[in-house]
């Protein structure tokens, strides 16, 4: 049955995503080892009963690092989605409600941001304002703005063709109030799907930025920097690259499955 396959990607995606978010939440309060304490004697241990994922070149527990890295990854990606949605959605609603020159200005502004290679500009921003998690959030968030603006505008334009917007205007409501009361709630499904997709892109972008050293700074662990540091030790300790690599891969896969599952659900309901 087609129904089964739909539910499969939704359930699998939700489970994987939920797992990573839970891990990030747990890491806030507890990790198997304190990654702030270096123990050179224990360095570069392969995975064993005590250190499930082994230890790195400074003797830190890799599992604990991955858990804390999940926290950075979820935090940066989530906040950048929030920034993108908070700015992009109102812009899209405004463009669709006002049309004309407002629409042109908003959408051409979006094109301007789209015209730059995303990661490159993110590097520029963090290079100018200094590396760090906050600047990474802003840099990634800026690229989420036009995505949300476009999706919102397209969905809103479609809603505006429906007679209920006329009915609301006959009831004396202006375009902005109709956008907030009628249009936005009807776009919720669409935006949640887009948010999930942007979340997964954000995870990749955060890993990319921290790989080049422009996101969260040491000692805050992050998957990208773990990959970077593992690079020189590939021959000696391949598992150091393997675990953060798989973490990124699995998390992004989970988010994409979730997005796909949600998209089908929303499509069916509409």
């Amino acid at each position: 049955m087609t129904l089964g396959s739909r539910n499969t990607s939704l359930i699998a995606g939700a489970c994987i995503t939920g797992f990573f978010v839970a891990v990030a939440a747990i890491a806030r309060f507890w990790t198997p080892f304190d990654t702030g304490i270096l123990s050179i004697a224990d360095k570069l241990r392969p995975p064993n009963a005590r250190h499930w994922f082994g230890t790195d070149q400074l003797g830190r527990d890799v599992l604990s690092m991955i858990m804390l890295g999940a926290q950075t990854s979820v935090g940066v990606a989530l906040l950048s989605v929030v920034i993108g949605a908070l700015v992009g959605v109102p812009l899209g609603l405004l463009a669709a409600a006002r049309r004309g020159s407002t629409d042109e200005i908003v959408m051409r502004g979006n094109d301007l941001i789209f015209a730059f290679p995303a990661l490159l500009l993110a590097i520029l921003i963090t290079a100018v304002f200094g590396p760090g998690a906050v600047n990474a959030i802003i840099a990634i968030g800026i690229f989420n703005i036009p995505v949300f603006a476009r999706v919102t505008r397209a969905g809103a334009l479609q809603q505006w063709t429906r007679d209920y917007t006329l009915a609301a205007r006959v009831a004396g409501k202006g375009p902005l109030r109709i956008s907030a009361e009628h249009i936005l709630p009807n776009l919720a499904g669409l935006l949640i799907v887009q948010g999930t997709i942007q979340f997964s892109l954000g995870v990749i972008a955060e890993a990319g930025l921290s790989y080049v050293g422009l996101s969260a700074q040491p000692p805050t662990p992050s998957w990208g920097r773990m990959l970077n540091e593992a690079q020189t030790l590939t021959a000696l300790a391949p598992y150091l690259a393997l675990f953060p690599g798989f973490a990124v891969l699995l998390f992004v896969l989970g988010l994409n499955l979730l997005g796909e599952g949600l998209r089908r659900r929303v499509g069916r309901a509409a």
Partner: protein
Amino acid sequence: MSAANLLEIADLNVVIDATRVVKNLSLELRAGEILGLVGASGSGKSLTALSIVRLLPERAACTGVVRLNGTTLSSMPESQMQAIRGRDIGMVFQEPMSALNPLLRIGDQVAETVRLHRQATDAEAQAAARDALNLVGLPGEQGALERFPYELSGGQRQRVAIAMAIVMSPRLLIADEPTTALDVITQARVLLLLQELARSRNMGLLLVTHDLAVLAQLADRVAVMHQGEIVEQAPTAQILRKPRDAYSAALLAAAGLQPKRSKVSRDAAPAILQVRGIVREYPRKRTSLWHRAAPLRAVDDVSLAIHAGETVGLVGESGSGKSSLLRVVLALEPAQAGQVKLLGEEFLSAKGATLSRLRRSIQAVFQDPYGSFDPKWTVGQLIAEPFFLLGSPPSAGERRRKVAAVLEQVGLSAGVAERLPRDFSGGERQRIAIARALITEPAVIAFDEAVSALDVLIREQVLKLLAELAERLKVSYLFVSHDLHVIRAIADRVYVMQQGRIVEEGNADAVFASPRHSYTRALLAASPGRSLSERPINEAGR
């Protein structure tokens, strides 16, 4: 059963999700005969048509025997069935846009059907396509073959769909609501075309429709379907004169639509809505760098007036500017010239509190019963939405009481306020829309094709309700429609609109009895219901 029958259906049953939607249906159709299958939506008429060509949805289970010229279709392997569809049985559906491939020129589109069923060279297929399009009135000399579907009007698209259906000279043509999406004049032309084709090619035509008026002009025999069963089957003239079944009688009465209320001239009453010299222009895309394109004038110097308690009909075919005019009158779109006076006050330039106060006196019901409600709001919230116009909105309890009161006025129970619009049928939704329009106790309600999307029986009920409400609440209506039946049934006075201008106005009875303008006469002549009362039916088209 005689061998002369082209199509024989015996004991057809269709079951969807454990519901029997077609019950023990038997039908016969001779070559050259036109059989009308009529019923309300959900009566199983379309499913019957689809089960002949075995195109039922996958969830549906079908039993029974379908024979075409003695060949049993119902037990045939799918591969052979594919050859039959399009070659021996042509099909025309309701929606002419979605039946055509938007990326194919119409000549190629028709030719493709030929190539699917016959070994033919490109030239032969093109020639066959040209002939078929000629036959349906889209001559190839005028470049029709080269055009894309989006360049054609609704009626022309339906002609292309018919050309595709007849290009292989099928023995049976099935047309499912072929004219429902078209306006009256186009509808009359398409119906005439179908009739000519059936007669000249000795082709059986099964015409599926909800509108008995359409069949009156056209069909030799009519089968009336109700809840999956054929309740009556007889020659058209007989059914129209003396329906035996109660349901057929109800359908007939609805299609005839006699005026329901006493029509009084209310000229003496004060005009509550006065529209003077309205011009509405839409900008067109500029084609030159130096000059603006001349705007499209949708409404051209239109004036009209509505008196207290009066129902005014505004009639015209699609594209005549009546919806644009309505939007200006509702102050939803700006006018380039002219004024609208509501209760003696200028409405279009009103602002703030005055605008809110005036808006309260004019409310509207729109065409699409599915699109005119926000799917996320409950019925109670939707009906209460116009309370926004009140300076001091009523308290929650007061609000609930008022919503319950208007719901009862439109014949729904107060309990439905908690439910979402998707739980309701088209007719119920229009009742909800009427309730929403009534909540501010307006002086005028504007209806934009408000009953066009409804089945005839439901349409009759809604019109009855409107007539009742008008009597009881002394509210005036501005009723915009392309359907003369509807206007005739409800309006005291009519305005006829063509290409943005009012070409005729007057007392409804007078205009319908003796139209002065040629366009009004054309509209009346094209209107399918005319034959119900006036002309001998079995003589149609001979």
